[in-house]
């Protein structure tokens, strides 16, 4: 069953629908035979139907009745059509008022948009079923979708829906033909308004419902408070601009963006002295801060250090209860709801009651209001008293504070930091770094292969090459059936094999990896220490097997995971800096890696991946081209050494 939705859909829950009642009254006026809208008969092939009205008549009537111009009348008429009080007889899906001879008709009150209840889906389902019966399944697309949705959603009462639809259909047939046509038009128009076709804007779309009845007491109080907060009488723009100018002139030098920040802006120089000096409860405030306290009382109160200073002053003057009361009121206003009542009572006992320990002096009227309000305490019950006290402090104590020895003492002690003179360059932004990398890559891609001999100086020392070569030979006799390469650390070695076999001219770099060449020495070490289980194919088929091996077998990242620490150690030659070690990415390692010009495309985080059967097409395509054009290594940070030397 429909979950019994006892929510009242009256106007106070549906904002912006209050106009419906007014539109109804206008529509009733339009019916008057003497002063209403002129009606005519609509001629159809089979019959005539009375009470058709033209668009221009409607516009004329509205303009006359409300003494407006034609455009306004047209807009109002369109609104009436959009709400469904009048429906068009031609072009029924567009709910606008055309100020020409197009025909309209009034909607019967049964189908008027009502405020008290929502339009039910059950009724819509019945309507769709009826339409289905009549049109034998030829519904529009959006109607079909709605039908299917409703069938799913209201599945349990579908029998009822179909039964009712059939009965309504038969009941409708009992009427005379013209009335049937009228009724069908009406019903169709009703559903165009309340279930608009997709892409149309519906006038019934009024936004969110209110969840709370705005007539409830607590809600009313909240609304009043908020309204007072934002309430401003209308202000002349000259006045408001004047206020803006005054504000900017006052605060100009205090703005860290517009003025130099002393000692230095931490965002620029990476030095946080400024923040340390301006902590909320610092012992000695800065001169700028103290100056701000003199701008306004609010400024003083909002700054915790300033408030503390003020409190000290008031203590000396034996009038600290005002500030204490104000702070207590703030606590009440912004505090948790559950302790509200106790807090209010506590405040009353401490500050307001007769003979209270810290009795504050407020006038009789405010006291009356407050005491009355405390009978039913809420957040804003002490608002009047708080405002009174605030004004008192502002007019009286604040002035005296600024002349007091306390303040002068603070002013004297205030620190005015020197501006930092750093020669240190700030670190580059990551955007610039990235641009530099891109440029490097582009440069290298444009240039030809680098001289191998040169490279050796930057990469691992030569002895390792021998190791590679050795391995290579050892594995050369292996069969290519090594597709089931285990995740062993020995994988890397085939890389060197590939490098061996691939002439430098064929190598390309599509580098997206930042491999560090220092990986190689470790790889070599690792591979030497482990058993070689995977002999690659004989030299002629090395290219073929290599890519496969690389793709599959080289998923042994445990090696690489362990490589990073070693990288720094093994790097030796100065310029190469593996990425994992230093946060600042330097372009140089790329250059080294570039040399080997092997495409890498694997996520940098090396995990042990299961060997999966890769696509062989890539493989064969490569071989078809005669030699390995692209060796796709499954890990990113591989640098290749030229094993051939």
């Amino acid at each position, binding site marked *: 069953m*429909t979950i019994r939705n006892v929510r009242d859909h009256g106007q106070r829950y549906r904002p912006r629908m209050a106009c419906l009642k007014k539109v109804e009254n206008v529509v*009733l006026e339009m019916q008057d035979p003497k002063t209403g809208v002129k009606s005519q008969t609509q001629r159809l092939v089979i019959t005539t139907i009375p009470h058709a009205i033209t668009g221009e*008549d409607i516009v004329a009537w509205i303009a006359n009745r409300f003494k407006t111009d034609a455009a306004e009348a047209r807009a109002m008429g369109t609104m009436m059509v959009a709400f469904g009080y009048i429906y068009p007889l031609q072009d029924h899906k567009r709910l606008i008022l055309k100020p020409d001879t197009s025909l309209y008709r009034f909607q019967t009150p049964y189908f008027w948009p*009502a405020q008290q209840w929502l339009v039910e889906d059950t009724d819509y389902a019945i309507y769709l*079923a009826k339409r289905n019966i009549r049109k034998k399944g030829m519904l529009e697309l959006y109607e079909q979708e709605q039908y299917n949705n409703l069938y799913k959603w209201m599945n349990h009462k579908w029998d009822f829906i179909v039964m009712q639809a059939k*009965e309504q259909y038969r*009941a409708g047939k009992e009427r005379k033909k013209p009335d049937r046509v009228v009724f069908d*038009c009406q019903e169709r128009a009703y559903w165009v308004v309340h279930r608009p076709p997709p892409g149309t804007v519906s006038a019934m779309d009024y936004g969110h419902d209110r969840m709370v009845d705005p007539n409830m007491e607590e809600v009313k109080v909240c609304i009043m408070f908020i309204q007072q907060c934002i309430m401003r009488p209308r202000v002349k723009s000259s006045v408001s601009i004047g206020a803006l100018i005054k504000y900017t002139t006052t605060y100009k030098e205090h703005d860290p963006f517009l003025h130099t920040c002393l000692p230095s802006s931490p965002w620029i120089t990476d030095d946080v002295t400024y923040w340390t000096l301006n902590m909320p409860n610092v012992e000695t405030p800065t001169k700028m801060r103290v100056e701000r306290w003199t701008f306004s009382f609010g400024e003083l109160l909002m700054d915790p250090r300033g408030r503390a200073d003020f409190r000290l002053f008031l203590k000396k003057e034996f009038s600290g209860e005002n500030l204490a009361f104000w702070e207590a009121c703030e606590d009440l206003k912004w505090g948790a709801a559950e302790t509200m009542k106790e807090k209010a009572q506590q405040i009353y006992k401490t500050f307001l009651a007769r003979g209270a320990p810290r009795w504050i002096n407020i006038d009789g009227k405010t006291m009356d209001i407050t005491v009355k309000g405390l009978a039913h305490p809420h957040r804003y019950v002490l608002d009047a008293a708080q405002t009174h006290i605030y004004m008192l402090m502002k007019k009286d104590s604040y002035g005296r504070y600024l002349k007091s020895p306390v303040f002068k003492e603070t002013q004297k002690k205030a620190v005015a930091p020197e501006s930092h003179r750093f020669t240190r360059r700030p670190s580059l932004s990551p955007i610039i770094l990235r641009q530099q990398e891109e440029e490097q890559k582009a440069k290298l891609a444009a240039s030809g292969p680098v001289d191998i001999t040169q490279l050796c100086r930057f990469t691992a020392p030569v002895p390792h090459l021998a190791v590679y070569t050795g391995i290579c030979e050892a594995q050369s006799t292996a069969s290519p059936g090594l597709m089931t390469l285990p995740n062993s650390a020995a994988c890397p070695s085939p890389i060197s094999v590939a490098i061996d076999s691939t002439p430098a001219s064929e190598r390309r770099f599509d580098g997206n990896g930042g491999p560090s060449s220092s990986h190689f020495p470790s790889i070599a070490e690792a591979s030497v220490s482990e058993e070689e289980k995977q002999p690659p194919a004989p030299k002629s088929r090395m290219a073929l097997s290599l890519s496969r091996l690389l793709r599959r077998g080289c998923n042994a990242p445990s090696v690489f995971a362990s490589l990073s620490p070693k990288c720094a150690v093994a790097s030796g030659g100065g310029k190469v800096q593996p990425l994992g070690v230093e946060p600042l990415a330097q372009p140089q390692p790329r250059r080294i890696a570039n040399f080997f010009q092997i495409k890498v495309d694997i996520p940098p985080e090396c995990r042990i991946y299961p060997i999966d059967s890769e696509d062989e097409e890539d493989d064969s395509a490569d071989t078809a081209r005669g030699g390995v054009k692209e060796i796709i290594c499954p890990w990113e940070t591989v640098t290749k050494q030229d094993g051939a030397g």
Partner: protein
Amino acid sequence: MSRWRQSVVEIQTRKRQVNECERAQAALSKVTACFQQMATSLGSNMDGSFLREELEETRTVAHKICSGLHRRLLSLLIEMEQGQEDKEQVERHWVIFLSSLENFQRDLKKVKVLQEIFPLTQRKDRQALINAGYAGGTSEVAARAAMVQTPWLSVEETASLDLKNHIVEIDVLLEEMFQRVNVPLWSVEPTQEAWVEGISTQDGGQEEDESLEDIMEVEVVSQNSTSGCCNHHNCKVGCLLCLLS
């Protein structure tokens, strides 16, 4: 276990009762559909005391059917033991009955509001009636509703209620039904598949039933061809008071 206990007579009685309920449900559907058809004329130019009387009569009929059906279904469901074979059927009827009660109540509320907006007590109220385009009345519809037959319609006497109390009574009925019977409503499976009703041809005479769009389409075409205010080919008058139509 209980099946063995039940005698043949009992089973037959129950079957008869269930069938009765089914027919009553169909009748209720008919009556509520007619009621709705008549309610659409409320507030229009065809509104009048006659219409309202017809509405009242239909409503009374519906009320009688509802009360009887309610009683019987309730007793069926309460008597029902676990594992009874027509359990699903009875539950389905239950859900259908609940839905139709709610639907009917919505219509009743609308009617109540409309009757308040258009009181028809004074003569000038007739001027406020909406010119909705109706020409004929709904007598045939009312007659259709009146022809409905249920076994207990003429036999049982139920207190007649006015509109307001009727609405309240339905509320009470629904409340009672939800409380006394524990039927998981969403577990009911319908017998009707989607889209089936459009395919069946049980409604005879559908050839003459042109679609609304066709009728209106033709009208649009003819409208465009006129230069005057009406379709009369001699009409050159541009005003609405042309007497040729």
